[in-house]
């Protein structure tokens, strides 16, 4: 196996048990780092604002990303559009630590995802189910996150995606070996990936929860459902007291089974982001890129 790919998967391992926060300015990045973020996602507009503004949403200004890289010592991630390998090349050129080929932005290609094997920098990709996750891994993703429904503050889709993925993994582990070939065909991925999941009972890369996490209890729910860490997008900087909420979510991820602690952490956090229910939204970002 390619050593660079191994190193990129291993960086994701270092992020486990942590919270990756969306930030739009160096100041927010510092607040996130001080609150205990294990990495930040630099983007011009958080998903809730992208959703509100409508229109085409693209990669952020590299100058803005560089400002954030200079402001913090933790890893910095940034998003490019699905299939937009030229945006990914730009992000690699400014030495981003992780690229998120993200459905939050408007897709640039409605058929092909980026051939992530061509890059030295690592990629994280969203997935709703095991098939999507394995297809992205086959393309070279070294980390997976649930898609959830970004910018809604509604956890229902992240829960659905994590449950679907993990139940498919459990099913795969229970198959007879001679049934794996058919499973590979159904998931549209090489046999070796299916075989890995069958033998190990997990994805070959780290799997985080993302999309709709707004409270410490949301984060704890996703961790108990099997997430290895959590992305929080709009949930922090769309809330009343970002620093306090961010720090509380970080602690909830570390001690995700300690309900007493999470109760304390959930006190006096100020207003949570308002949020919208999935039935109320016209645009389902999770349906982008399969």
């Amino acid at each position, binding site marked *: 196996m390619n050593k660079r790919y191994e190193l990129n998967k291993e*960086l994701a391992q270092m992020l486990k048990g942590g919270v990756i926060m969306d930030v739009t300015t160096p100041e927010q990045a510092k607040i996130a780092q001080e609150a205990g973020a294990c990495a930040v996602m630099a983007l011009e507009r958080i998903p809730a604002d992208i959703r509100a503004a409508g229109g085409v949403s693209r990669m952020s200004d590299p100058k803005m990303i560089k400002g954030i890289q200079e402001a913090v010592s933790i890893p910095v991630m940034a998003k490019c559009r699905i299939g937009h390998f030229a945006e990914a090349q730009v992000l690699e050129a400014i030495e981003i630590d992780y690229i998120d080929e993200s459905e939050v932005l408007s897709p640039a290609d409605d058929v092909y995802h980026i051939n992530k094997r061509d890059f030295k920098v690592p990629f994280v990709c969203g997935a709703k189910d095991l098939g999507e996750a394995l297809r992205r891994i086959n393309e070279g993703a070294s980390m997976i996150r649930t898609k959830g429904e970004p910018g809604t503050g509604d956890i229902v889709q992240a829960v659905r995606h994590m449950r679907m993925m993990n139940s498919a993994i459990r099913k795969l582990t229970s198959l007879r070996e001679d049934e794996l070939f058919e499973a590979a065909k159904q998931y549209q991925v090489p046999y070796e990936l299916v075989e890995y999941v069958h033998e190990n009972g997990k994805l070959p890369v780290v799997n985080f929860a993302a999309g709709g996490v707004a409270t410490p209890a949301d984060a704890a729910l996703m961790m108990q459902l099997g997430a290895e860490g959590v992305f929080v997008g709009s949930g922090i900087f769309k809330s009343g007291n970002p620093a306090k909420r961010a720090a509380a979510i970080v602690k909830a991820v570390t001690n995700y089974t300690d309900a007493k602690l999470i109760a304390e952490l959930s006190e006096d956090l100020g207003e949570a982001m308002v949020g919208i229910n999935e039935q109320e939204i016209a645009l389902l970002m999770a349906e982008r890129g399969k």
Partner: protein
Amino acid sequence: MNIGVLALQGAFIEHEKVLDKLGVDYTELRQKSDLDTKLDGIILPGGESTVQGKLLRELDMFENIKEQIEDGLPVLATCAGMILLAKDIEDDDTKHLSTLPITVKRNAYGRQLGSFYTESDYEGLGEIPMTFIRAPFVAEAKPEVDVTAVVNDNIVGVEYKNQIAISFHPELDESTKIHERFLKMCESPTVAQA
């Protein structure tokens, strides 16, 4: 034997898998009450030192762990763990456990593109695999500190009394030599301090 594995954030499960392989029991340290268990050694894993350092304090585990290390509890610190142990961090006033007289340079190899794998000598162990992920290195070690590994002229491994600190991640590679060395220290901690 019971090894405490600091499990606040980062790659602690990887260390636990090595301990499983070596047949050693361990306790995950996630909050203060976990420190009530008697430990024969402690592992500080890789991850983000800013996150781990903050949680150590806010979950009220900091003083207890610092005192135990100062009292001779053997410690194996990898990557972020090395930063937690260091007395000084270059270009940063932050101090964490400060039990190891070194100055450490964070993200010393730059961003993720600077992460690399190599095989190199470790004092007394011969050539071992070394995986560096956004790693620190030791900018300066006080004379009383034993330098155990140097890669490209940079110090990446040190030992001092009951403390082993390395920039790389033995928990990610096949070799268990570093862990075995640490466990030997845990079996007879007084020898290590002599």
